[in-house]
């Protein structure tokens, strides 16, 4: 191969003039860049540009202002952000507590390995099957619903609970949010050295003081960066909510965009693009916070 011959000569970069080296060395990475350009940046870029295009061409802000002034679409964002905040917050809280319970000394080793293995599966399990698993559990005819009704004479659905609503979506999302938190936070908890705890107790600190002044400050950057990850994970999710509600009862931004794309709602073709632009802005802001916090978090991780 011609490139092979050329590349062999490049093994000792110092022996050649630097100018000729650069283009050849770059040649190898061109396919990757070309691919991301063709199938990610150009299509996504068109969505972003489309958000500012008028129905008959020309640049306009009317699509965005339509979204902002449409109370239904504003509510979509509100619901999406609420669901993401709740499932990220609760996912992080429960994730940390469960991970710590499994990792701390005195808990058998096998529980930890079972938990991390299961978390790896559950964090990647989602969409329609997950929605169905919860309908089997807490749906109108779900096993738990029927059990509570028959054995304890307690009707979940008469007391306002429904798995097909916003609370239901949150309960279901936690099924992949908590495991994701466990996967990310476990190495950080491993990073809490035993000597720190011994040192604090030798110095007369209480367990509360240990957590307040040592444990939490060390874990905090990891917890915050994972919170952002969980928020984005929930904010971008479509299939699970769609499977649970068939898009009818809970109006999240991705669900509305889905309807626009599949043409079930006759509306401004640029509405979906304006909605997508809003999602992109939220996620990009999250990413800008994530990167520096992540750098801080990796300091103590083992």
């Amino acid at each position, binding site marked *: 191969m011609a490139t*092979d011959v050329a590349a*062999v000569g*490049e*093994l000792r*970069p110092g022996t050649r003039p630097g100018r000729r080296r650069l283009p050849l060395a*770059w040649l*190898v*990475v061109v396919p*990757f860049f070309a*691919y*991301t350009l063709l*199938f*990610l*940046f150009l*299509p996504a870029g*068109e*969505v972003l540009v489309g958000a500012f295009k008028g129905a008959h061409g020309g640049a306009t802000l009317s699509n965005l202002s339509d979204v902002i002034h449409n109370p239904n679409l504003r509510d979509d964002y509100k619901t999406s952000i609420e669901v993401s905040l709740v499932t990220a917050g609760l996912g992080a809280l*429960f994730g940390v507590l*469960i991970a*710590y*319970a*499994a990792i*701390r*000394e*005195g808990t058998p080793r096998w529980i930890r390995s079972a938990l*991390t*293995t299961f978390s*790896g*599966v*559950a*964090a*990647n*399990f*989602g*969409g*329609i*099957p*997950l929605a*169905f*698993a919860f309908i*089997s*559990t807490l749906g109108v005819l779900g*096993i*738990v619903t029927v059990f509570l009704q028959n054995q304890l004479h307690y009707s979940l659905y008469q007391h306002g609970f429904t798995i097909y609503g916003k609370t239901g979506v949150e309960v279901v999302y936690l*099924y992949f949010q908590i495991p*994701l938190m466990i996967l990310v936070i*476990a190495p950080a908890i491993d990073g809490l050295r035993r000597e720190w705890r011994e040192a604090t107790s030798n110095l007369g600190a209480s367990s509360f003081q240990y957590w307040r002044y040592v444990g939490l400050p060390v874990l905090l950057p990891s917890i915050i960066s994972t919170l952002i990850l969980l928020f984005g994970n929930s904010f*971008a*999710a*479509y*299939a*699970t909510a*769609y499977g649970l509600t068939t898009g009818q009862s809970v109006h999240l931004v*991705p669900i509305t*965009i*889905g309807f626009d794309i*599949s043409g079930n709602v006759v509306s401004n073709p640029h509405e979906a693009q304006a909605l997508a632009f809003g*999602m992109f802005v939220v996620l*990009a802001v999250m*990413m800008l916070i994530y990167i520096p916090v992540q750098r801080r978090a990796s300091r103590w991780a083992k």
Partner: protein
Amino acid sequence: MRRFSLSAWIWIVLAAVYFLIPLLATLLFSIKDKQTGNCCSLSAYGFILHDPVFWSRIRLSFELALETIVITLLLLVPTIYWVHLRLPRLRAVISFLALVPFVVPPIILVGGLLNFYRGSPQWFYAKPFGFLAAAYVILAFPYVFFSLDAGFRAIDVHTLTEASLNLGASWRTTLARVILPNIKVAALSGAFLTLAIVMGEYTIAALSAFKTFPVYIENVNETQAYPAAALTLLSFGITWAAMGSILLVGRRGGATRVQLGGGGR
């Protein structure tokens, strides 16, 4: 330090209840009789196994997964190798590019792709092995990138390459017999994760009207509850098998690494 903590055990039991009951409920649903709804029968499983549509859909998804894995590895392995060997300054750029799919949700990606490639040739736009596979490679990028990047960081790319070339091996031999065996575990981990992603991906397939395995689950779900429960368990089993394979190859390769998920999709 206390050896036994009541609160720790309470959290572990609560977690077990929350995570296992939905699976148990699905199992109980799947063994109800398709006609009568009584326990216990394997008729829901029989229905699936005798449905030719099931076999064609799961086959399509599996072939899509293989195609996605091959394309992703062909694009990423040489790129990451070369970046580690020659263009270390580019590493930040590449890892940023590989992170971008996290910021572009599948629902936006599919909308953008449908728009951008409208009017492209039928062999691409209307075929799952064209359009859908192209999108799945983008979805797989972050996962496979981080797996491979960690794999390349764990070996001394410079020394291995120079030693191999100094001993008279060609570039092809160096890649095939020196570099690839050393990153095999990382590549396999990325491949199994991609398999799990593609076998479960619904959003892009449904909105671009391709009939993959997850779309089949949704169709069955609308009309027949018990076979849908069986399919749900099967889907969980596929994810489990893929993740188990990662642990297995990782253990054999002497590396344990956390795999991050992207559940919601």
